[in-house]
C-alpha cells in the first residue's frame, strides 16, 4: 500500500508496477501532484529543467539536467517536463509542474484512489506469507473508504504541515501557506520569522510592495552558492539579501524572537540578539511565520515510529524503512529523514524531486526482492568493461549526480559468477552490510570545490575508501582516472580468475 499521490508516491507506484508488484495508492487529494497543486506561493519552482544540454532528451543522461520529470524505464515517457514548459524560464511554473505530474501519471497508467483519506493505522499479527520475509505483521489502514490491509505500507505524505516554534504569540500570525494576495501588503512593514527559502521567497515577492521587510531567526543565513549544495537560500531568492547588504531597506537579523504581540492594527515583535543579549523591539503591520513544516505522520508515532528534528521526520534505515517499526517505509520528500553518510554535513537531495525519484526506484526494487520474492536479473560485465563502465556512470549516471554520497553504483566481483552489475544501492547499506567482494562508486562533495568520485572497495568483508581528484569539466573519463580505477579493481580481480 502506498499513501500519497505527490511525485514520490507516483514514482514509487510506477516503479512497483514495472516490477509486477500489486499495490494500491491512496490519496486524500483529488488529482496527482501533492504539494505542487498549491505551492510554492509565488507559483514557480526552485528546481530547473534545462531545454538544451547536448544529450538526447530520451537518454538517461538527460535526467542530470532535468530535475522535475519523473523517471520511466521507457524512452517514450522520458522528459515530460521540457516538452510542456513554455520556454520563458528554465524553472517550471507551479501549474507546469502539476501538469507534468498529471501527464506522467496518465501516460504510464498510474492508478490512484483519490479522495481516500488515511485516518488511522493498526499493526496486527498475521501468519507468515509465502514468497517474502514480511510475515508476522500486517498493517491495517482505516480510511474514509474503509479498511485496507497489507504487509508493507509506504507513506509518501510530504512534509507540508505548517510548523510554528513555541514563541509566545506566533500561533496567531499567518503561516507561509496563508500568504495573502501580494497587493494586500502594499506599503506595509512586514516582519518574516524564518530565514530559509520559504521566508526569502516571500521577501522576494514583496520587494516591490512592502515598505519595510525584516527577516529574523537565530541562525545566520547560508546561501546555496556558498555551500555549493541545496543547503541555504537559493540564488533565485537572494535579491532581498543583496538589498540588505547594500542597505536598501531590507533588514536581516540574527536574533531570537521572544514574543509577537498584537499592537493596535499591527504587531510588536520583541527580538534579542544571541551574541550580546541586547533586546530590539520591532513594529510591523504584518508578521508571517515562514518557520517550516512537519511531516503529517498521523498516529504513526503511537505505533512506535521514532521521529526527530524540527520537521518531525521519521528516523529511517538507508532503504527508507522506519528505524523502529519494520514494514513501514517512506517515499518522497520524507526520505530526507534517512541521513546516509551525510559527509562533511552535506545532506542528500532526498528532500527534492531530483533526489527522491531515484530513492523510490531503489525502494521498489528492494521491496520486490526482499518482500515479494522477485529476483531482478543482474547484467554481467566482462573484466575489460568494468573500469570504463564505472567511469561512465561517474560522469553521466544521474543517480550519482543527484544523490551524492547517498546512492552508489555497485558491481560485484565474484570469482564464481564473474562481474555483475548490482544496480543502484544506498551507499551506507553497501558500506555497513558486508557481503562478497564488490566495488561501489559515488560522487561526493566537501562543500568547497567541485564534486569528485569516491570508490569503495569491499574485499574480504572490509571496506576501504579511495577519493579521486575532481575534474574542472566534471568528466571522469581519461587515462589517469582509468589507471586509478584499474588499480583499485585489481586488488580483487588480480586475485581471482578472470571471467572474461
Amino acid at each position: 500500500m502506498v499513501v500519497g499521490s505527490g511525485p514520490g508516491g507516483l514514482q514509487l507506484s510506477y516503479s512497483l508496477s514495472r516490477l509486477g508488484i500489486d499495490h494500491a495508492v491512496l490519496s486524500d487529494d483529488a488529482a496527482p501532484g501533492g504539494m505542487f497543486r498549491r505551492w510554492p506561493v509565488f507559483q514557480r519552482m526552485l528546481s530547473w529543467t534545462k531545454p538544451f544540454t547536448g544529450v538526447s532528451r530520451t537518454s538517461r543522461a538527460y535526467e542530470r539536467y532535468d530535475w522535475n520529470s519523473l523517471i520511466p524505464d521507457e524512452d517514450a515517457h522520458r522528459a515530460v517536463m521540457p516538452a510542456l514548459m513554455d520556454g520563458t524560464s528554465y524553472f517550471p511554473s507551479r501549474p507546469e509542474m502539476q501538469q507534468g505530474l498529471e501527464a506522467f501519471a496518465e501516460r504510464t497508467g498510474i492508478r490512484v484512489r483519490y479522495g481516500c483519506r488515511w485516518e488511522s493505522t493498526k499493526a496486527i499479527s498475521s501468519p507468515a506469507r509465502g514468497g517474502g520475509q514480511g510475515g508476522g505483521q500486517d498493517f491495517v489502514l482505516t480510511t474514509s473508504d474503509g479498511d485496507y490491509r497489507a504487509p508493507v505500507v509506504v507513506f509518501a505524505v510530504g512534509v507540508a504541515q505548517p510548523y510554528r516554534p513555541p514563541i509566545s504569540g506566533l500561533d496567531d500570525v499567518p503561516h507561509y501557506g496563508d500568504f495573502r494576495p501580494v497587493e494586500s501588503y502594499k506599503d506595509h512593514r512586514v516582519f518574516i520569522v524564518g530565514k530559509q527559502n520559504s521566508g526569502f521567497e516571500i521577501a522576494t515577492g514583496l520587494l516591490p510592495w512592502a515598505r519595510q521587510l525584516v527577516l529574523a531567526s537565530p541562525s545566520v543565513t547560508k546561501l546555496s552558492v556558498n555551500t555549493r549544495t541545496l543547503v541555504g537560500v537559493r540564488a533565485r531568492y537572494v535579491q532581498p539579501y543583496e538589498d540588505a547588504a547594500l542597505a536598501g531597506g531590507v533588514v536581516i537579523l540574527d536574533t531570537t524572537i521572544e514574543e509577537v504581540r498584537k499592537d493596535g492594527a499591527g504587531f510588536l515583535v520583541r527580538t534579542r540578539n544571541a551574541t550580546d543579549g541586547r533586546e530590539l523591539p520591532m513594529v510591523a503591520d504584518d508578521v508571517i511565520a515562514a518557520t517550516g513544516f512537519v511531516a503529517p505522520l498521523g498516529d504513526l508515532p503511537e505505533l512506535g515510529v521514532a521521529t526527530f528534528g524540527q520537521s518531525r521526520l521519521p528516523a529511517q534505515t538507508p532503504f527508507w524503512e522506519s528505524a523502529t517499526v519494520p514494514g513501514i517505509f517512506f517515499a518522497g520528500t520524507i526520505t530526507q529523514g534517512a541521513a546516509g553518510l551525510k559527509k562533511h554535513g552535506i545532506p542528500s537531495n532526498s528532500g527534492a524531486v531530483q533526489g527522491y525519484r531515484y530513492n523510490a526506484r531503489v525502494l521498489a526494487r528492494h521491496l520486490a526482492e526482499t518482500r515479494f520474492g522477485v529476483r531482478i536479473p543482474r547484467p554481467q560485465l566482462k573484466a575489460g568493461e568494468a573500469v570504463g563502465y564505472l567511469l561512465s556512470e561517474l560522469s553521466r549516471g544521474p543517480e550519482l549526480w543527484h544523490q551524492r554520497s547517498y546512492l552508489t553504483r555497485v558491481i560485484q566481483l565474484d570469482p564464481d559468477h564473474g562481474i555483475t552489475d548490482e544496480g543502484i544501492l544506498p551507499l551506507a547499506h553497501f558500506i555497513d552490510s558486508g557481503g562478497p567482494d564488490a566495488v561501489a562508486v559515488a560522487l561526493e562533495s566537501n562543500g568547497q570545490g567541485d564534486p569528485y568520485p569516491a570508490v569503495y572497495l569491499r574485499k574480504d568483508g572490509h571496506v576501504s575508501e579511495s577519493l579521486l581528484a575532481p575534474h574542472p569539466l566534471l568528466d571522469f573519463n581519461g587515462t589517469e582516472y582509468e589507471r586509478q580505477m584499474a588499480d583499485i579493481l585489481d586488488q580483487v580481480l588480480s586475485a581471482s580468475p578472470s571471467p572474461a
Partner: protein
Amino acid sequence: MAVRDDVVNTIAAFSLFADLTGPQLEQVAHLFDEAFFGDGERILRQGVSGSGFYIILEGTAAIRVNGVDRSSLKAGDYFGEISCLLGEVPIADIVAATPLRCLVLPGGQLEGFLTAHPKVMYRLLQGEARKLKNTTKWLS
C-alpha cells in the same frame, strides 16, 4: 534540518554547555543538526572520511575498534572530535547500542564553533584531558 524545540532544555544540563546563557544555548541548538540512529546503526565508520562532531541527546553507543567493543557512551557524551580536530578519518566505529538521538556539527565547522565559544572549548579540553588520563592509567 533544524532541531526539535526541546533540545535547548536537554543540552542545558550537559557539562559541555554548563557556562552558556539561555540565548547562547538557543544559538548552539540552531547551529547543530539533529540526527537519529536505529539500534545497531553505525554513526562513525573507521577509515571513512567526512564525519562530524556528535553530542548524544538520548540513548547509548558503543566505541568499536576492529570489530571489538571498547567502551560505551551515553547522553551528554560526545564523539568524533578527535577526527575533526586532526582532520583525519575516524580510528573507531561508533555504533548505536539503543535508538540514539544526537546533535551533529560537520567536522569543518568545529574550529569556528569552539573559537566562538571559548568556555565550551575549555570544557571539551577538560574532557580530552580526562580521556588521556584514563588511557595513561590503563596503559601503566
